[in-house]
């Protein structure tokens, strides 16, 4: 009963709900160029020329994510996919609308958040974990598994600046996914590492699904979305164009892209 758009019924989390979005809108209210400083701002304010650009990244988005569901989000660049994940991961507070979350949400938006080149792999694991909201005890428990999965054993006491970019990416992915979470937000995560590691990471995502973790996957790789997801949402200019069966939605999306190109 997602019917409170008119403010009639209070929105509630029903059993099994992980994420509920109701009429969520996000607007970037940005000062026009050349107003980035206090001096400029005061001068323009005195002249009565304060101008802002409004950019609506999301408009009236409503949707529900159930326990264990795997939902894909597709759309062209700038359609609001990443903004949607940011609202769910609490990075952005919506201008209007209502966000309800139950359980822990783990964002895979920023792999290796806050990694520092002068710290060792071990130190970075604890730093990164803490920034993602995990306690020291949780990280201690996970430490061995993280080192093993990321295949860094002998490097773990070396400073991060000695790592290859592939190693850093592997470590970031492993920390972010080696956790107890209820909702996983993934933004183009399968572009990390070599093919062997991609296989491994896909397996891991599948395991999450078995443990009834809900996942939202944002990706441009349509075949991947189709093979993984139960449901697909198509975003365009911040609105939901269509939502439903992956095959149908992806086909409709492809047709649209082709017809746009022909014009």
């Amino acid at each position, binding site marked *: 009963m997602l019917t409170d758009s008119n403010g009639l019924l209070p929105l509630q989390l029903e059993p099994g709900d992980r994420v509920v979005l109701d009429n969520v809108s996000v607007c970037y209210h940005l000062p026009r160029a050349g107003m980035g400083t206090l001096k400029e701002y005061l001068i323009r304010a005195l002249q009565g020329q304060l101008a802002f650009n409004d950019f609506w990244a999301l408009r009236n988005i409503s949707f529900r994510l159930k326990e264990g569901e795997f939902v894909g989000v597709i759309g062209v660049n700038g359609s609001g996919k990443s903004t949607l994940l940011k609202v769910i991961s609490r990075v952005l507070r919506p201008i209007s609308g209502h966000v309800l979350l139950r*359980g822990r*949400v783990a*964002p895979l938006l*920023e792999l290796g958040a806050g990694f520092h080149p002068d710290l060792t792999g071990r130190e970075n694991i604890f730093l990164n974990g803490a920034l993602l909201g995990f306690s020291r005890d949780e990280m201690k428990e996970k430490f061995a598994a993280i080192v093993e999965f990321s295949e860094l054993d002998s490097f773990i006491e070396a400073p991060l600046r000695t790592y290859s970019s592939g190693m850093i990416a592997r470590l970031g992915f492993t920390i972010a996914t080696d956790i107890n979470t209820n909702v996983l937000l993934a933004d183009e995560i399968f572009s990390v590492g070599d093919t062997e590691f991609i296989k491994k990471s896909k397996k891991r995502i599948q395991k999450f699904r078995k443990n009834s973790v809900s996942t939202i996957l944002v990706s441009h790789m349509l075949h991947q979305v189709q093979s993984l997801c139960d449901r697909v949402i198509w975003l365009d200019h911040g609105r939901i164009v269509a939502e439903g069966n992956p095959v149908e939605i992806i086909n409709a999306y492809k047709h649209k892209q082709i017809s746009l190109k022909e014009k």
Partner: protein
Amino acid sequence: MKPNVSDSLPVYDSFKQRSLAISEIWDAYRYRDAIFQLTRRDIITRYKRSVLGVAWTMLNPLGMMLILVIVFSNIFETGSTYAAYILSGLLVWNFFSQTTNAIVNSLRAGAELIRKIYIPQSVFGISAILTGLVNFVFSLIPLLLVMLGTGVRFTWALLFTPISVILLALFSLGFGLTLATIGVFFPDVTEMYQIILVAWMYLTPIIYPETIFPERIRLVIANFNPMYSFVKIFRATTYLGRLPTLEEFVPAFAVSLAMLVFGWWLFTQKAGEFAYRL
């Protein structure tokens, strides 16, 4: 309604953000490990990189003190303990100017994170203060040595010093959060602040004895310059070897709490916009 199993999980509701200032306290507490890890990172990377490591934290104020002593001991009637007088004031001032700048910078350095993952933004400010406190403890060693060398009397009042330092830290946190909030919207304010800091320092009796001012001007400074209070209570227990009087302590206490509450309030009111602006 009867709660079922999954109802026991924590719920986030974007509507129920009634008091941002209060909920941020809880969020920062839940992220205490992040505060600790950020502090640890800043200290480790600082001391790993430079050869002299910890020594720099101690040598820096000592070097500055030495220069000031050489320059000013001929100008003022200073006496033999002038070096300890300067250093005690300098440490307080350095803590304030360094941590307030560090809070602004740590928020900017954390912008990448703030735009991409949820994290209570106050953890950056709090960890900057904690880092400052660790450095402050190191810089107390040269102060104690200089006090010993210049023949300043050590008394039990010294044990009161941590309280002065905590008040200073709370004031700096409040001030730094205020500055950081303004800095998110107007980056040039940070540049202006550097100039203000210089003027502010010379309006605080750090280098000169406050007796060089006539009584009236001294009262103006005492009433309108909060840093005056913090320098005063810190000097009381170290340099003067006595407890601060009530007239010295109450203003410092009141001003640090007021600044903290205001800074925290302003910061949390605006923190929701940081991800849009940084």
